[in-house]
């Protein structure tokens, strides 16, 4: 239900990063959403596509990558992705485990169309 709010935060954060860059030049935005966040990716994507044009991002698509839920076993140090019902270590069966990651709500990258007035300071990836 809070996907609408997370979408608004996403657009706000993107525009803050863009600074002087025209939001219409944004072609795609990469998002990383942890499977343990409370977010339903389809719902987030729907709201992003509703809000983005209103905020001037008329050409943007959103690429959502789902980040796995990872636990580490405190006994054998094995890092594992728990199955739906079993959160204990598949290697040594220990239930002494620590949550490592899976709560991510991140903007990974913003792809901006090159134009003459494009900001030269943005870093170029290889």
């Amino acid at each position, binding site marked *: 239900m809070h996907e609408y709010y997370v979408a608004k935060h996403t657009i706000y954060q993107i525009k803050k990063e863009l600074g002087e860059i025209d939001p219409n030049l944004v072609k795609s935005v990469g998002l990383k959403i942890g499977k343990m966040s*409370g977010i339903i990716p389809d719902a987030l994507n729907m709201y992003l596509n509703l809000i983005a044009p209103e905020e001037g991002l008329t050409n943007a698509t959103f690429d959502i990558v789902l980040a796995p839920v990872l636990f580490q076993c405190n006994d054998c140090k094995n890092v594992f992705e728990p199955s739906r019902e079993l959160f204990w270590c598949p290697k040594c069966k220990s239930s002494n485990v620590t949550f490592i990651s899976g709560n991510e709500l991140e903007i990974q990258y913003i*792809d901006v169309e090159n134009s003459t007035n494009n900001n030269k300071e943005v870093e170029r990836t290889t």
Partner: protein
Amino acid sequence: MKRMLFFEHLEGHGPSEDVTRINLGKNILQANDEVAHEIFHLYTDRGVFLTNVMGSPGSGKTTLIKALAKHLKIAVLEGDIASSVDSIEFAKIGVPVVQVNTDVYGSACHLEAPWIADKLRLLVEYKPEFVFIENVGNLVCPSDFNLGEHERLLVYSIPEGFDKPIKYPPMFTKATTVVLTKVDLAPVMELDIEKFKQSVRQINPNVQILTFSAKDEDSISPIVTYLEGKRQALLNSLSS
């Protein structure tokens, strides 16, 4: 036409020639978390222990906080979509309380730090030892928003059933404490409390699990002792 793209991983999907990629790796909720961070420091410096109380509608959040108010020096921030029903309860028993209604924020199902920061700053001036935020009743949405709390306390009631820890893992993994309430109803619901605790520990091995019943006045004592211990640890960390 907008397309929806889900990549399991990004290899081979780098940016094309005519675009410039701005690499970020930034938290979407940064604006929320910056304010939450500021609140966390304000409360920590003042030695006020801040608890974010979350749980389904009707799980017993208000009842639990009212029971704690008899033993602890508290103030309360009430978050509801609409109305002041719960905050009136606290005002009646002389507990400093402020109400935040999310209907002005599109009837949000959760609280965000910037919406409540001013009110949390105000509550500190009443010199409480504990401040409780009663979040909007919801078992999913509040879990993603940090409010600057020291403790994330999930109120979960017996009638909600057995299977929720696995059905709603985000809330159960993010909680630092689960208070299982309405345990007086366990016989009626035929719910085995030990089994329930196990199913919570399965997905959150480090969580503290306590039980409470409004029908048993003494059942609040272990929760009072636990929270006093947590605040004392906070005070000790300040003086060291």
